[in-house]
């Protein structure tokens, strides 16, 4: 299997599906000739023309709203938000419209739409090019939300998202784009939405998370295994809505000690719900309090390098927290 960059896996998924299904098209700011500010849509306009890799005016509520209309009309739009920080002008279209179309029409109408948006920091983007907006959309029934951490999952989940009959927010991690490469099958495959994946098996502690921080957890786990003999069991949620309850409970049962990690700030994040599920279902199987290691509760990370570093998770922070939990 070819090894592929995370960003290329995303591009490939769009390209393949646009070849396969004429209803699929991409719209967003600079997605055309420029191929997106990160290069995610590079080549699509050349291959599929101006209409199917469509540069829109600078207006996110219209990008979402027009895509919703096109989806209801039977197309399969992929709306790109240039940075997830800039999807907030589209909140009303996403929460009031996309999420509620099937329910409010009693299944007469539907909204098969994908909204892609890059999340996360570490690129010296400062307050407004680094945020994790998951908690804003998480908990809105009617939306599905995925956040892959590997190239394999990125392609498979994006294909699943495009084919999904409901609106899917696809949060791609901009730090993963070129840092993460792994084996990606060439042909057609999907990764099921709603299913977590065990990234690493272990019997001492369980780490649950999604997106970029899992790579730090994996690195930390290797070191802890070598240096301390601590074996971490690591679960990638992959889909954050709907959460894979069974997968979560199984992973926790395995060790009885759980650390939840995400880059989004701690309070009100996805991790709170994961903790709540565990404390609802598995309280008596726990050998330690449920811990969370997340972004700090500040509005967003500063652009200056020490500030950014201070804000972000990294292997060392993960390692310290994992070891501390193992020793509990």
């Amino acid at each position, binding site marked *: 299997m070819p090894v592929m960059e995370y960003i290329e896996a995303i591009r490939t998924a769009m390209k393949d599906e646009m070849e396969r299904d004429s*209803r699929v*098209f991409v719209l967003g700011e600079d997605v055309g000739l420029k191929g997106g500010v990160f290069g995610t849509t590079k080549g699509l306009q050349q291959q599929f023309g101006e*209409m*199917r890799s469509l540069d*829109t*005016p600078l*207006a996110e*509520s*219209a990008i*979402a*709203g*027009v*895509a*919703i*209309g*096109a*989806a*209801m*009309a*039977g*197309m399969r*739009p992929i709306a790109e938000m240039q940075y997830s920080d800039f999807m907030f*002008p589209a909140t*009303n*279209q996403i929460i*009031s*419209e996309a999420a*509620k*179309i*099937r*329910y*409010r*029409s*009693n*299944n*007469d*109408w*539907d909204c*098969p739409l994908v909204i892609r948006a890059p999340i996360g920091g570490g690129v010296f983007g400062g307050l407004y090019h680094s945020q994790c907006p998951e908690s804003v959309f998480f908990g809105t*029934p*009617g939306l*599905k939300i995925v956040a892959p951490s590997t190239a394999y999952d990125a392609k498979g989940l994006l294909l699943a998202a495009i*084919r*999904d*009959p*409901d609106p899917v927010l696809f949060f791609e991690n901009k730090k993963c784009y070129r840092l993460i490469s792994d084996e990606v099958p060439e042909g057609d495959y999907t990764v099921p939405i709603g299913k977590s994946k065990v990234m690493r098996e272990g019997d001492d502690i369980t780490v649950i998370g999604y997106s970029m921080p899992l790579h730090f957890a994996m690195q930390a786990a290797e070191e802890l295994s070598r240096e301390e003999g601590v074996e971490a069991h690591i679960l990638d949620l992959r889909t954050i809505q709907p959460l894979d309850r069974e997968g979560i409970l199984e992973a926790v049962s395995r060790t009885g000690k759980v650390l939840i990690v995400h880059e989004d700030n701690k309070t009100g994040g996805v991790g709170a719900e994961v903790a709540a599920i565990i404390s609802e279902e598995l309280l008596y199987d726990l050998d330690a309090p449920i811990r969370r290691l997340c972004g700090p509760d500040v509005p967003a990370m500063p652009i200056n390098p020490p500030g950014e570093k201070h804000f972000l998770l990294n292997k060392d922070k993960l390692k310290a927290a994992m070891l501390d939990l193992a020793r509990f």
Partner: protein
Amino acid sequence: MTQTGSVKNVSRHAALGLSDERAVQMYEKMLLARKFDERAQLLQRAGKVNFHISGITQEPSQVAMTFAMDLEKDWFLPYYRDYGLVLSLGMTVKELMLSLFAKEEDPNSAGRQMPGHFGSKRLRIVTGSSPVTTQVPHAVGFALAAKMRGESSVSLVSFGEGSSNQGDFHEGCNFAGVMKLPVIFVCQNNGYAISVPFRKQSAGRIADRAIGYGFPGIRVDGNDPLEVYRVFREAHERALAGEGPTLIEIMTYRVTPHSTSDNDLAYRTKDEVDEHKALDSLPVFRQYLTDLGLWSDEQENELLARMRREIDEATQYGENAPFQAIEDAFRHVYAENADEGKGQ
């Protein structure tokens, strides 16, 4: 309403290409919308239903605009006062009553949404919500889909003048302008957004906003349904010819309170309302047809009797119909099987 046109004996509607039969049909739909609306108000006052939001005096133009549209191919994104519009598209009084009583058989939402929140794929009416103006970009999306698929389909989206001040109006219009999409943006300017008069909503003319988007904006008197028809026919032709969108501002007046929950005399006078009630175009249009010999008192009475029966039956049906079963109340948050939504 007087006849114009240079050729003697050619009526205004004939000059516009409307047959006598269509002109009469137009009137019938206007009257039906009026009668439904009046009944709904009664039902609310009688405590039979909780809530009604009225479109009275706006129906003539709502009906007229649909006569310029292609009901087989176009898409419609109405707003909550558009009874005249949806009735013209084929929604029945019975269906509206099912919605008013919030019953399961209501095709709009199975009694989940408020009345006036229309939606029916069969009738090419796109499901709508309460937050105003969100439907504007949706209409642009339908037009974009039509253009992509090479279909000759136009989308018509309607909203109030207050709602035209939302960002989505701007973003939707501008998008459609850039791509020259087949959309007709319809602002029904009835002078109020709940209690707020137009002068506190905007210092400009809504129609003039189109200038900034590079397409025509037209203000038309809502009390002149034939002129409304003419303007829409032109807009429809432009859209099909690939010439892009049109913004049409229909000047009308909200003669009822905002809804049955509103007391309008807290913010306007009865005199002002009465003055506008006197301008109602429904009797004028009846007189126009009568003058031409196309309509008579007997026909009127017969039609009224027929409508009364229809509305009575629909009311009874709606009242007696079951609510959506509790087991189904939370269904359809997501597709229940992967094939749902794969169609079209």
